[in-house]
């Protein structure tokens, strides 16, 4: 668990005092990543928005019980995940084994590398990965790129999506995500690795000029 943060206790105390500005700041800063995590469970934007609303209400209802044993973020996301699972109960199951078996999914297609019996460079790139700035109209900083990533995340196996969204969008730590999803650190890392590799491949196809 994350060590108790004085700042978390300050925020909790502010909420208990009825500090509306503090609540508004939290809502503004956290709601979008929370929505994305909820989406990884309920797969519907409207439902995800409902889950976030419910979560904020539950945070207020339960804030007297926050003792700072975990981080505030961890505490809020545990509430969020419980609400998301309840709203979409078919997702309330354990991580499918196929997502965590080792050796199940290479990060890059094997054909991108020279074979192990190559006389000069076994296991090396057959050609370096293409750069992502070859098509000026496909700019990394554009909204379109974010849409490509969103679509790639929607297409991920559920457990991979959950881990990647929690780590790379909600910025939860690996310990927090392992705890929230009841995963070993190793399994959490495997899921994250596969998810990021898939999203990277989607970006590679997009920057290579393929239709999004």
């Amino acid at each position, binding site marked *: 668990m994350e060590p108790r943060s004085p700042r978390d206790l300050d925020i909790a105390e502010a909420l208990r005092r009825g500090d509306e500005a503090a609540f508004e700041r939290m*809502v503004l800063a956290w709601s979008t990543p929370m929505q994305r995590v909820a989406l990884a469970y309920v797969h519907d934007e409207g439902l995800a928005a409902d889950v976030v609303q419910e979560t904020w209400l539950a945070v207020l209802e339960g804030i007297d019980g926050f003792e700072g044993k975990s981080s505030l973020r961890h505490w809020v996301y545990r509430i969020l995940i419980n609400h998301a699972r309840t709203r979409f109960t078919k997702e309330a199951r354990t991580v499918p084994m196929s997502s965590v078996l080792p050796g199940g999914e290479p990060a890059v297609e094997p054909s991108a590398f020279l074979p192990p019996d190559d006389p000069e460079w076994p296991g090396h790139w057959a050609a370096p990965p293409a750069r992502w700035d070859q098509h000026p109209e496909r700019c990394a900083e554009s909204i379109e790129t*974010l849409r490509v990533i969103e679509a790639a995340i929607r297409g991920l196996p559920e457990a991979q999506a959950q881990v990647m969204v929690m780590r790379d969008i909600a910025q939860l730590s690996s310990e927090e995500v392992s705890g929230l999803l009841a995963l070993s650190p190793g399994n959490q890392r495997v899921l994250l690795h596969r998810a990021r590799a898939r999203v990277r491949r989607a970006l590679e196809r997009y920057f290579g000029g393929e239709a999004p």
Partner: protein
Amino acid sequence: MTQRGIDCNELVEVVTEYLEGSMPAADRKRFDEHLEICEGCETYLAQYRQTIQLTGKLATADVGEPARGKLLAAFRGWKASRSG
């Protein structure tokens, strides 16, 4: 990883471990040494990092006005019910 240098097809499988900082020092050294001489892997690592960075941008967008208004109303209601 074995005692010999790391191959590209091995490197792409341990990138996450490397970035998490959970790689043993000796393996990390082999990883870094390979990056120095391999443009392909240097490009791959940069793209992998960029994937993470771009994904992080999905965290920021405005909360819809109707949602914010409802939440603030709920907050005021909650606050009022506590001071009763």
